[in-house]
């Protein structure tokens, strides 16, 4: 079971693609219709937050599972 999750607020995303650049696990893809980022592979997220740290649009949130035993 994955301990992390990631979401992109498409209202805020401006399709710059920096999350795609920095993600070591290829979590994101830019969708065809408007180039905005979609976490197509969120299950692969390792919680490194690089996407979160660089996203200039405050569009990305990385979640950590709490309450579960590690």
């Amino acid at each position, binding site marked *: 079971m994955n301990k992390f999750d990631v979401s992109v607020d498409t*209202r805020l995303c401006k399709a710059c693609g920096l999350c795609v650049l920095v993600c070591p696990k290829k979590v994101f893809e830019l969708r065809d219709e408007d180039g905005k980022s979609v976490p197509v592979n969120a299950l692969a997220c390792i919680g490194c937050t690089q996407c*979160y740290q*660089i996203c200039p649009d405050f569009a990305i949130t990385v979640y*950590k599972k709490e309450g579960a035993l590690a």
Partner: protein
Amino acid sequence: MVNENDAEASFVPMSSAPDKWLRKEHLPHIWCPGCGIGTILRQVIEQFTKLGWKNDDVVFVTGIGCTGRASGYVNAQTLHTIHGRALPTATGIKMARPDMHVVAMLGDGDGVGIGGNHFIHAAKRNIGVTAIVVNNRIYGMTGGQVSPTTPQGSKSTTTPYGNVEPSMDVCKLALGAGATFVARVHTANPVYVGQIIGRALQHDGFAVVEVLSQCPTYFGRFNGMPDPVQMLQWFKENTFMAKSPEDEKEGKIPIGVFKDDKTTPELSKSYRNLWEA
């Protein structure tokens, strides 16, 4: 393997900074796709969160230009002042209320162009203000004109044949004027940007963090790097860790903390010695 406690488990955001420090109702912000200002602002609010500061103890001051709009998005005491004058405004605030955390976020035009003299004198006074200079090396808001930090030879809407003038070095200027904390970072390494801003915010005196930032819309597009990814790549390849902005290495830009002087008295506190006398 499914854990039996999963029923009570929930996913929570890894950082509380956006909830606490952003005026989310004003997003999306006005900056272009791929602009570095948002990345830097993200790092600033992450540090506010780490330091445990209260929203109404932070006064966040900006001038005019792209970076000038940052104040509108921060959930603090915010002032969007006039062009080039964020630092004297911040100086007045800090002098009146030394207990406040006063942060000024400036662009390169704001900081060392129209506001250059204020920058020099804020450094000379060692006023307890953190100056984050977002250096995208161009005037973005007005459509891509040359700025004081545009590299010699670079194109802009007002240097169509390449910039004839040499560019200004923000860190050397800050050091020369007496700033007590001086550092340069770039947006290709946001976590390091955050670390250094965090040190600057805790510095008791005038702290300057120059953040090299990408403007893909103007600087990038005019100079062969229209994609922000290309610009970040350029920062990575053309910078090196150094101890001084005077250090040289294959024409690259020195990065790092160049000064961290904790002995020089901060002005808003030292002025109050006159009160006791």
